[in-house]
């Protein structure tokens, strides 16, 4: 994909947010699953299965398996936002963790820019840890309380940019804070000195530190106040526009997902029950589970 094309796509995506999605059929839709115009998707997940063994009995033998993720396939094209919705325990987070190899898939393939990452060794997967980052739900649990902001932002740098010295790392950390709308003077502060929204911004800055291409946002706003949710979502969208990021946006709230995503995957009990563009999901949901989820969205 040419740089120009990518830019256009990004511009298109970011403008294609809530208002345009509401506007009606004339808003452009990007069919991500089928990768139109020969665009190679950034991420291809095929027939992904993750089964967790269930132990039981006196000898704690394996009694059966929980099908956390059951035969899931989807694509994410570069510069887009794919929303992954479902209730708690539907396997959303497991998929996210599989992508960064925190969990080994039982079967299936994960291809990142055409490279099968599922079969890579720990060492050969390492460069991908720079390209794929995560943002977590709980801003109080996702930052180490013992580390200052400078240390939190400096750690990924020291791992993936070992040539940087302390001064350079500090400058970069200050720049990151500015980028997420925080005061660079706060480098010496500790996580407990920030509010929930500010902490989530630090989490975003930490993810951005290593110049990633793809960010897995695991319910990044679910723990925040509604007013703060909006500012974080806006920040994520601005950053996407600025840096050409690709998001996999995991949430249980369809309203937020629909607002930020181009394409939505609806998950239930480890399976994807419906996938379509955000407008299609919103306008004409097909699967009864999606309809139920939509009905659960509070309206004014």
């Amino acid at each position: 994909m040419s740089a120009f094309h990518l830019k256009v796509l990004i511009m298109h995506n970011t403008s294609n947010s809530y208002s345009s999605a509401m506007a009606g059929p004339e808003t452009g839709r990007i069919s991500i699953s089928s990768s139109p115009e020969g665009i190679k998707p950034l991420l291809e997940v095929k027939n992904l299965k993750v089964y967790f063994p269930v132990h039981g009995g006196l000898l704690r033998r394996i009694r059966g398996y929980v099908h956390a993720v059951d035969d899931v396939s989807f694509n994410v094209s570069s510069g887009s936002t794919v929303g992954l919705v479902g209730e708690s325990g539907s396997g959303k987070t497991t998929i996210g963790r599989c992508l960064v190899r925190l969990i080994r898939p039982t079967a299936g393939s994960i291809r990142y820019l055409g490279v099968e990452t599922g079969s890579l060794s720990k060492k050969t997967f390492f460069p991908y840890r720079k390209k794929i980052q995560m943002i977590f739900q709980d801003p109080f649990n996702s930052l180490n309380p013992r580390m200052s902001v400078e240390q939190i932002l400096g750690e990924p740098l020291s791992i993936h940019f070992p040539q940087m010295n302390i001064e350079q790392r500090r400058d970069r950390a200050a720049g990151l804070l500015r980028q997420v709308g925080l005061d660079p003077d706060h480098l010496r502060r500790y996580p407990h000195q920030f509010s929930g929204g500010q902490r989530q911004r630090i989490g975003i800055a930490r993810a951005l530190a290593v110049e990633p291409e793809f960010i897995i946002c695991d319910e990044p706003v679910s723990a925040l106040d509604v007013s703060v949710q909006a500012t974080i979502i806006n920040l994520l969208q601005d950053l996407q526009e600025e840096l050409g990021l690709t998001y996999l946006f995991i949430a249980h709230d369809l309203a937020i997902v629909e607002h930020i995503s181009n394409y939505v995957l609806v998950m239930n009990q480890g399976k994807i029950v419906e996938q379509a563009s955000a407008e299609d999901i919103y306008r004409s949901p097909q699967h009864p589970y999606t309809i139920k989820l939509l009905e659960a969205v509070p309206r004014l």
Partner: protein
Amino acid sequence: MLAFIIRRILSAVPLLFGISVLVFILMAVAPGDFLDVARSQEDIPAEYIERMEQEFALGEPWHTRYFIWVGNVVQGNLGESWIYRVPVTELLWQRIPATLVLSALSILFALCLAIPLGVLAAIYKDSIFDRISSMFAYAALSIPEFFLALLAVMFAAQTGLFPTGGLSSVEHEFMSFWGRMADYAHHLVLPTIVLGMGSVASYMRIMRANFLDYVRSDFVTTARAKGVPEGRIMFLHVLRNAINPLVSGSGFILATLLSGSILVENVMNYPGLGQLIFEALMRQDEFVVVAAVLMGCVMLMLGNLIADLLLAWSDPRIRLEKN
């Protein structure tokens, strides 16, 4: 910081007075007094006992004696031991270092053993090692200290590897400086192990549980996802957080060690504060009991203070000035 320390020390003063009142009341309520032993011996003349009663003011009610004692304490005089006929301060100075060294070593022993064991048990959760270590922990927790002390004395007597009691050998005075230190260390091995064993077990369980809590936290997941080496994750992200309760708990552990030392010191014949308190209590040597109990409290409060300071030093979330 300094203001915090001073405030803590000042707040201890009323507490110490309260404890001293309590000790006086308890001693008064307990049947008999120090001279009962003398009274039971027919060859001691009644005039002598009467003279002693007057000297010790045993005829007076407890509150009168208490105020006499407070008056003396304010002047820096803790009174005299009725058994030994020496100033109480002198007795305390002989005993406190022994107990302090024993308690400090026990805590150190407990921490040095419990932290690595707890961490290993957490990392290798549900493994054979985890199960054996938890079995050991429950065993160590359920064996009473005095019984362990008896076993240790028996072990020492049977094998001859360690002295069966005391602080130093008979020939201690004739040794070189390092020889004397080695002699002290040799005498401290068994009491330290006996006194520290219970704490090893409880510390280990706390360590394991905390470690597991933090291993599951999101910042550890993030670090893993970023490719931070596992060793660095365990030490920097998990251990530094999981160790907090042990630091703050060490003040509390000191308290249990001090009370435990009363039993252990007696069984193992270790000349510390615990033995002194026990002996003085049995003989109703009033001033010694009060002073020794107060010293125990002071040590406990200092232990808590040190634990708080350590915690503030190690945990950025705790700022003492705001308290």
